[in-house]
């Protein structure tokens, strides 16, 4: 599984969405992405890439695209 697949899979597993829903997806864009779902997503991504987000980055992580940008800080490139 490459990084893009791992990243997408975290959203799919956490929110029960399909791949074609991911582009442009924002916090609260689907019912499952609420405050509880958000931490589930963060946990899935941390496990997938063996990283630990800083608190500020968890709060900044408000969309599918923003997450890709934030992951660069952790030397994870999703493309």
């Amino acid at each position, binding site marked *: 599984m490459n990084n893009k697949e791992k990243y997408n899979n975290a959203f799919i*597993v956490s929110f029960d969405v399909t791949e074609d829903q991911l582009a442009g997806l924002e*916090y*609260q864009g689907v019912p499952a992405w609420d*405050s*509880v779902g*958000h*931490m*589930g997503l*963060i*946990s899935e991504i941390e496990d997938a890439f063996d990283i*630990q987000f800083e*608190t500020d980055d*968890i*709060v*900044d*992580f*408000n969309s599918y695209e923003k997450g890709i940008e934030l992951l660069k800080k952790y030397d994870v490139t999703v493309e």
Partner: protein
Amino acid sequence: MEALFNIGAYEIQEYQQNRYPMFFLDVIEEARPGEYARGRKSFTYNEWYFPVHFADEPNVPGMIQIELLAQTFIMTFLTIPEHKGKKTAFLGMNNMRMRKKIVPGDTIVVEATLKSFKRGVATGYVEGRVGGEFALSADIKIGLPDMMREFIPKK
């Protein structure tokens, strides 16, 4: 933190918010806050679900077995004083295995190990045994919504 022993059903409800008819533990035999919990439940024919699951072959529904795993697991972190009594939210379960039909008269012992607890997300492993025989197990992830709200994304 010191280990706790023989926490009875009424006292368990001071630690967690599950209540009858969705509260399933008889006793937490041992809890090591932040590490481990072992719970026990004896099933009698008087359980509310046996007459309907199934009338001619009563056995414990899978969803109740799963909930029993969860209610034992949350005692690994709700026994940490600052989290006592908080609500919890199921986040996920992986590698679920069920291998035994549980029937009236059986007693299940569930052991839960907390592997990680950070920012209100607890992950660990739970396993249930009936009469010493493996019954079910899973990797489990449960959250504390109160703590998670501190990490709500900016709109």
